[in-house]
Structure formats: C-alpha cells, structure tokens
C-alpha cells in the first residue's frame, strides 16, 4: 500500500499494512493524525475525554472545521453546553468564522439544552427526540462529521439514569449506521476513570485522553491515545499546545534515530573556529552545545552562527530565553553584527519567552510549531540552562532528545548555549552533552601580562573543543576575544593580536610543569 499523498504518515512503512483495515478521517490536529497514522476511524465513534478546561470542545471543533475547510466534509455539532453564539465567539478568537461556514452549509450547530428543573417526569420515555434532531441535522447539510459535546449532560439533565444509559447505547449503535464519523466528548471522572459515567463502555472504537497537569505551578497539556481498535497507534503521552492557532500535538517520541547523517558542512561564522573544526565547520543537521561561565560570549558565538546562516541565504530561528529580541539586536550590534537586516529580510526570526511561561512540554510544543512554520535551516536556543529551571534533569534530557531528533529529521542544525558554574564546567551540563555532536567550551582565565606598561592584566577568554563527532578537530585551547568587529581567534585568524605572547607563554609554562 502506498501512501504518497499524505506526507504525515510516511514516517513508518511497517505499519501501513494495518491501515488497509480501518479507514481514517483526519482530525486537523497537527501531530495527532501522525500518532494515529491517519486520524480517527471513519464511520465510527471516537471518545475524547479530559478534565475541565483540557480543550475538549476546541479539539472537537477543530475536527469539524478541518473537515469543512480542508476536506469539503460538512460537519454537525450537537452542543449540549455552549450555544451557537458562544461557540461562534470562541472560535472567532482563533480566527474561524463559523457563521460563514454555516451559511455555506458546511457546518451546522444545534444547541441541545436540558435543565432538570425545567420539567417533570412521569413514566416511560425515550430519547428519540435527540435522534430526530441529529438525523435532521445530518440530512440538512449532508454531514460527514459529527460532534456530540458533551453528551454526559444527559445524565445530569434527565432523572432516569437507566433510560439514559440504554438510549445512549442505542444512539452509539445507530450513529454507526448513519455514515458519519463521530467524536464524543466526555469529562474524566474522579479516581482516574476515563469518563464520569462510564461512556467508554459504549464508545469503544477509539479513545483519546486529554490531560492538563500542573506541576510546580507550571501547567502542561498532554494527549494520549488510550485505545484504537484495529489500528496500531502511538501509545505515549504527547505534549500538546492550545494557542491562538488552535491545537497542535508534538509526536516527537515517535521519531527515533532514523535520520540521515549529512556530510555537508556549515560554517560557524568564525573563520578561526571553522579551522578548529577540521577547517570546514560543523556538520549540517548536527547538534552543537556551547558551554561556558557567565560573560564568556556564548550568545556572541550563537549570533555569529546565525549571521553566517543568513549570509548564505538560509533561515535561522533564534529562541531566546533570557533576552528580548531588541536586547539581542542591540548587544550584537555592539560586537559588529547587524542582525536586524536579516530580520527585515525574513531570514532571521527571534522568538523570546520566559522559561517559566510554560512547562517544558509547552516549550517543546511551541518550538515544534514555530520550526514547522518557519522552516529554518538553523535553530539557536539561547540558553538551554534556563529551561532546566522549569523541569528536573531527566525531563530536560528527554525533552532535548525529542527536540534534537525532530530537528535532525528535518535536517536542521541546532546550536544550544549552556551556562555553567565556574569550577565545574564539565559537570554542570545536565548530562545533555551525550546528545550533542559537538561540544564547545568557553573559558575565562587569568592571564599574567609581562609587559604591564602596554596593558593592564585582564582575563583571557579561550575556546576548547571537547568533542566533535565524525571529524578531526583541534584539541587545543584557543584564545579569543570579542571586539567591535566580532569574535576573533587570536592565533587562528592570522591577525596581529594584542597579547599573543602572554597567552603563549602561559601555555608554555603549563606544559613545562
């Protein structure tokens, strides 16, 4: 079976056999269709459960809108909680015009209102009224997709639970005969049960769980496909993001080590550093870590790298966790780098945010989305250290692994900076160095200057390549300085340095010892 038409599900060919059995309907939630290898089962019922505020309604509406806008499949929303006006307003904030779609007969909303205090109950009844409304709605627009949000309201609205149960069972069976793909939302129950009223017993073809957890005051949203009859699916928890563009899932754990290793080289933007790296620079799609204590010039190295990329005409996405974009531009101008022109030409984008603004998963999801949208050749994360402050080490490492896998798969070269504590530079890199292909250490050391009259004693910065996979690289500590014209390697750039003598003599003395 070939699946060239859908780029989302070409990651694994092994599982394509399974898709022959269950036809799938894309949900429009980026990433979910990848996890489920195509979407939710066509013509069947899918249960979406989650706590209050976990994004169930939005998730369901996105599914309808995706069908209406991208696939030309009309959708019907039977809303038990929000009325059409409220839904229209809520979705307008995400840039969707429901009224327009309703006019085009691509969408219909029926608000079903049940309030227990409004009626008296006397004897036998059934829910054919609801059936009739659903059927009428489906017929009126030729709906292919149906959302029932949140049908559990029936349990609180109607006094006789036994009738509601047997009628729901009948409803879900009946829905399968209507030729619509249904998404039913439900609230998770106490004690970890999937739904408060056990709906998962009737709607069993596909169950998706949305989770919203708060840990150390930082909230993280996660999604898990609990069950999918007749189809393999990703079983992990995947972070997802709810923002102005809707909802997106990051299926990064499904990537794995399958990327192609590139032999192409990219310049670091600093000739001297390129020389240390076998004369050619970094490998494309490799990951680079720059560690160093405060003030050693990590950001300047990153900026040179970004600048060089832009000069080659490649796009660069710069994630800043410490400084605002304008601060970065100002600081880099002071070392002779004009990054603003690249921003104006759309080659550079700086995304600044506080590390604590969201959880690690949230950052991951955001970066995933931005990278997918901007399609950069180079990504800079400056610094990665601050992310450590929102998660524990294993979490940071797992997030980085997923991020690096994702970037490599898309042939993106990534540079991370990392602030280290003086004296234990190599220890403080949170065990992330094993994920990195190239590890650069920036140090500062006290230099004794012989000729005091020429210059006051100062600290000398030096760069050291701890490792660089797959290439012969320099093992030397190379002194450098940051000038008005950028970073210069004192010994490698072939220019007259202010104090090569002092530096050299220090190395000489050290060697002699």
């Amino acid at each position, binding site marked *: 079976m070939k699946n060239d038409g859908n780029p989302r599900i070409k990651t694994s060919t092994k599982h394509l056999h399974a898709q022959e059995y269950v036809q799938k309907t894309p949900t429009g939630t980026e990433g979910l269709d990848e996890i489920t290898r195509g979407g939710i089962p066509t013509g069947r019922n899918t249960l979406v459960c989650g706590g209050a505020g976990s994004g169930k309604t939005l998730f369901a509406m996105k599914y309808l809108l995706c069908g209406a806008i991208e696939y030309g499949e009309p959708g019907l929303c039977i809303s038990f909680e929000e009325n059409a006006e409220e839904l229209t307003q809520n979705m307008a904030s995400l840039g969707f015009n429901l009224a327009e779609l309703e006019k085009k007969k691509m969408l219909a909303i029926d608000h079903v209102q*049940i309030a227990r205090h409004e009626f008296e109950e*006397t004897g036998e009844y059934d829910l054919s*009224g609801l059936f009739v409304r659903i059927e009428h709605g489906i017929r009126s627009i030729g709906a292919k997709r149906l959302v029932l949000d949140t049908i559990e309201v029936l349990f609180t609205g109607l006094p006789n639970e036994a009738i509601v149960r047997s009628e729901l069972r009948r409803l879900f069976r009946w829905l399968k005969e209507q030729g619509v793909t249904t998404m039913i939302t439900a609230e998770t129950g106490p004690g970890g049960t999937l739904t408060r009223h056990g709906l998962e017993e009737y709607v069993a073809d596909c169950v998706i769980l949305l989770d919203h957890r708060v840990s150390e005051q930082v909230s993280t949203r996660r999604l898990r496909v609990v069950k999918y009859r007749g189809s393999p699916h990703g079983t992990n928890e995947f972070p997802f993001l709810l923002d102005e563009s809707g909802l997106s899932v990051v299926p990064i754990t499904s990537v794995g080590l399958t990327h192609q290793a590139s032999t192409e080289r990219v310049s670091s933007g600093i000739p001297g550093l390129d020389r240390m790296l076998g004369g050619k620079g970094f490998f494309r799609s490799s990951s680079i870590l720059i560690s160093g204590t405060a003030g050693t010039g990590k950001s300047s190295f990153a900026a040179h790298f970004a600048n060089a990329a832009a000069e080659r005409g490649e796009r660069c996405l710069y994630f800043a966790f410490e400084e605002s974009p304008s601060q970065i531009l100002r600081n880099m101008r002071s070392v002779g780098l004009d990054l603003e022109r690249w921003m104006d030409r759309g080659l550079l984008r700086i995304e600044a945010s506080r590390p604590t603004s969201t959880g690690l998963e949230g950052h991951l999801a955001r970066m995933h989305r931005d990278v997918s949208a901007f399609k950069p050749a180079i990504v800079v994360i400056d610094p990665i250290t601050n992310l450590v402050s929102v998660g524990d080490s294993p979490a940071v490492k797992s997030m980085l692994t997923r991020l690096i896998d994702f970037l490599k798969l898309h042939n993106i070269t990534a540079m991370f900076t990392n602030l280290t504590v003086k004296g234990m530079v190599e220890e403080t890199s949170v065990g992330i160095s094993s994920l990195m292909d190239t590890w650069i250490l920036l140090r500062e050391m006290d230099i004794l200057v012989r000729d005091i009259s020429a210059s006051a004693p100062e600290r000398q910065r030096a760069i050291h390549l701890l490792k660089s996979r797959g290439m012969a690289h320099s093992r030397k500590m190379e002194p450098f300085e940051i000038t008005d014209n950028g970073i210069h390697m004192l010994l490698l750039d072939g220019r007259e340095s202010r104090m090569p003598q002092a530096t050299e003599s220090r190395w000489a003395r050290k060697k002699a010892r």
Partner: protein
Amino acid sequence: MKKAKSSSTTSARSRSSQDGSARGPAKRSTKPKTMEWELRLYVAGNTPNSIAAFSNLQQICEKHMGGRYRIEIIDLFDNPQLARGDQIVAVPTLVRRLPTPIKKIIGDLSNTERVLVGLDLKPARSLAARR
C-alpha cells in the same frame, strides 16, 4: 414513518385544528371557546409510549380543564425541525405553552399526580408530602 408533511411551525399549528380525523395520536384538537390551556405533545412515531401519553393526556384534560384547552400533537418524524424550538430531547414530551411560564413534562404521563403538578394544577407540596 408516516407520510411526509412539509410544514413550518405556523402551518403545522394551523393545520392541526383541521385534520382531527386522521390517525391514532395524530394531530387533533378540541375547539376552544375561551382558550386557557395551550398544550403541545411531542412524539416520535406511533409508539406505545406516544399512544399512552395521548390517551392519558386526554383524560387529564377532560377531567381538569373542562373545554378550555387545545392539544397539538407534533410527530417529530414528520416535522423534525420543530424539535429545536421547544428543546425536545426525550419523547413523549408535553409542553404547556399557555398559560406562561412554559412547562415541560416528559414521559407517557402515566402518573396523573405528577402531570397535575407539572401543569400547575396542583401545588408541588402535595407531591412532596407523599414522597
């Protein structure tokens, strides 16, 4: 399903006063002199529940409302679009449209006591006392 009838809310109502002779619990109404009670019974097809609800309702009306009522039967299979207006989910549902406020009673109306309470013909506490 019964024969299709395309009609809007108003035409369904106006027609209901004429074709009383039709079938089982079909559209039927008693001609009012002073209309005090305006009732609507929503059903879905000719089910035992629908038939029971209609006959129970007729008895209650005769006994407690004299001739001052009008019953309108709406079969949702014929007029599915009418379910939305009165927010019908369960059938049978009896809706008291007049006098206001609107009241709803779901079920086959077999519990006369409760129907009377639901229609405000009996104070609710008479029921509460029994419970």
